[in-house]
């Protein structure tokens, strides 16, 4: 038995979630930035920059949920039960936003502001509670006899609330740099002005989470600060600073594409840091991917279909983005 199925499945799910965070991150960010831009025509352009791709982005969230159920039923049941309220609020935010997205374009001028508010509110709620859920997950979920052993409001901690705000900052930065890349003129200028403060805010929240986690969790501190791990992992925070240095340079010379690409690097680094802290636990702090795995005949059964279908989804995704490359202007009617 040479194949480590739980490891393969962990990689697939981590990859899927990464795709989700990167891609839904910037389109949620656009909803968060909506209040900063007042004009209808600029708002139309903002929405149009993600209109062709946003629902494909959420595909990864559904796939992540279903794959977690099939491959790690214990994690699916315990984590989802523990994070019940934040996840339900997140889902309702996403529904709101999804429907608002569609009907805003079909609404009359008199009613459009309602859908605008639904879009802003949905994006904020979804992002905030995604962050809260993430924070509560990092904080750890007690498991006794394969069942969640905490209370209904255990997720509600200063740390998780802070993570909710942190994610709003990070997604806003993603959305902001995405718009710098995809737009021009006054809208791009407005985003350009927002980029620096948002980047600093993101750095601040990343630093706070990076310090807070090892201080609160001895095992995470141990993971990072023991020798020789320290030497292996030190580049991660180092790279964050290097990335930000180039980010500010890029903003200064008014680059269009580089800020977004560097923000992706930043998100990737944050994600890696998280991975280093938690690996190989799928229910922190104690249940590993091997403990939570469904039997090999289940994981193997779905691996066949997944390996067949994921290349199609990836191919289609890249194609959509390729077709949709370049600037979006006021003249472009995506509807």
């Amino acid at each position: 038995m040479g194949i480590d199925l739980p490891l393969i499945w962990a990689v697939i799910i981590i990859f899927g979630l990464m795709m989700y965070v990167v891609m839904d991150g910037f389109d949620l960010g656009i909803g968060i930035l909506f209040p900063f831009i007042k004009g209808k025509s600029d708002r139309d352009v903002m929405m149009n920059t993600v209109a062709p791709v946003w629902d494909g982005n959420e595909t990864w969230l559904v796939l992540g949920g279903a794959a977690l159920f099939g491959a790690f039923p214990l994690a699916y049941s315990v984590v989802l039960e523990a994070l019940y309220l934040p996840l339900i609020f997140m889902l309702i935010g996403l529904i709101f936003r999804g429907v608002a997205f569609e009907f805003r374009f079909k609404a009359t001028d008199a009613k459009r502001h309602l859908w605008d508010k639904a879009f802003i509110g949905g994006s904020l709620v979804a992002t905030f509670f995604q962050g809260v859920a993430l924070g509560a997950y990092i904080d750890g979920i007690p498991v006794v006899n394969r069942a969640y052993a905490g209370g209904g409001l255990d997720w509600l901690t200063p740390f998780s609330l802070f993570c909710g705000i942190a994610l709003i900052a990070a997604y806003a930065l993603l959305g902001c740099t995405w718009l710098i890349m995809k737009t021009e003129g006054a809208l791009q200028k407005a985003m350009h002005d927002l980029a620096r403060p948002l980047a600093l805010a993101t750095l601040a929240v990343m630093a706070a989470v990076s310090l807070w986690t090892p201080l609160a969790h001895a095992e995470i501190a141990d993971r990072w600060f023991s020798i020789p791990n320290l030497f292996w992992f030190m580049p991660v925070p180092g790279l964050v600073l290097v990335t930000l240095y180039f980010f500010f340079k890029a903003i200064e010379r008014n680059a269009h594409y580089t800020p977004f690409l560097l923000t992706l690097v930043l998100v990737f680094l944050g994600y890696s840091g998280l991975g280093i802290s938690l690996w190989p636990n799928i229910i922190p702090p104690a249940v590993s991917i091997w403990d939570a795995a469904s039997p090999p005949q289940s994981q193997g059964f779905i691996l066949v279909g997944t390996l067949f279908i994921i290349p199609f989804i990836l191919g289609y995704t890249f194609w959509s983005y390729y077709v949709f490359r370049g600037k979006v202007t006021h003249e472009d009617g995506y509807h």
Partner: protein
Amino acid sequence: MFGLEALDLARIQFAFTVSFHILFPAITIGLASFLAVLEGLWLKTHDNTYRDLYHFWSKIFAVNFGMGVVSGLVMAYEFGTNWSRFSDFAGAITGPLLTYEVLTAFFLEAGFLGVMLFGWNRVGRGLHFFATVMVAVGTLISTFWILASNSWMQTPQGFEIVDGRVIPVDWFAVIFNPSFPYRLAHMAIAAFVATAFFVGASAAWHLLRGRDNPAIRRMLSMAMWMALIVAPIQAMVGDAHGLNTLEHQPAKIAAIEGHWENVGDEPTPLILFGIPDMKEERTKYAIEIPYLGSLILTHSLDKQIPALKSFPPEDRPNSLIVFWSFRVMVALGMMMIFVGLWSAWLRWRGGLYSNRLFLRLVMCMGPAGLIAMLAGWFTTEIGRQPWVVYGLMRTANASSNHSVGQLTITLVLFVVVYFMLFGAGFGYMMRLVRKGPKTHEGDDTPHGGPGQKRTPARPLSAADEGSEEGQKDSLREGN
């Protein structure tokens, strides 16, 4: 809330979200096949009426598909959030089946939906038809997986229990469990019939308002052929499904029939109407027809069916609800068969497109298929209680450990948000229906789609009409 316990609230929440959700996929399944038939007939006969109908219904299909995706997002997480003990216990089997359902749906969307909705006049006719057929087949494959999962929960096999959890031993046995073929056939046909009545009601509405054109007539005619041929087939499939249930879930049948005890060798009567009382263990005010219960369920005049009292009280499903939900389903089914027969009579004697009484009935029957489908699902799901996995795990042991307060908050949120947002979506679909089919629509190439810069690739954007009356309105009277 209203003195309900956490378990009741959890069940109501799941019932509410899944009932709302199933309406969209049911119409998706039916319309996808309808569209494939329309396009096939157009390619074969070159009659542009079929093409106009294709374009009309593909927009409604697109909006409906979008609603199904959004409401389905919740379902992918609800098994874990609300039924975590079940997910851990049975996840090794139901998890992979759900994963396959999602994979199929996305494969379909990634591969063929874009071509189907936006590829008209851009790809060859043959390729476009192929995409439509693949979408139709894909919806049925999705149905296949989700019903395999549900049927396994009703009649589990192909597994063993290790350390208190289910482990799959034979996937073929898991998927093709005893109730699966019946349930799959019954549900797929239900989706077809429900869609046919939805289509027929739309045509009747237009005809009653004096909008009479060949496309609208063709719509009504095709829907009524479905009612005439498929509604009776559905009754036969339902009968076979019932016999299968009698074999594997006798308590469900006893509850559906409100049948409490067998007296001597007396053949089982059929209770037409009555009020089953779970406390008094009898069906009050029963109107019975002797022998008929035996005749329908055992196809004999002397065999008895199992009675509720032969099951311990804690193993009995709620007879009051399933007795009536079953009768609602059957009554609507009879009505649908009647509409089919009446349509055949009018087709033969004339008046199919002008008999106002008939058209009014067809219009009122528009939601009949969907209501019957929901009633059927209520019957089978409440009828399998108190088990979530039949004979293996009780529903009471399956739920997550949430408080009444939490469940109340989320339930109220779901109800408000679903009615508001999906209400808007449904209203928009109705508005598209009211516009009616346009002629010569297929001469144009649709704007955008995947591979095109001009418009998004999302299903909902395939319908570009405004959501308000009078806006961008190209409503034409009568054509």
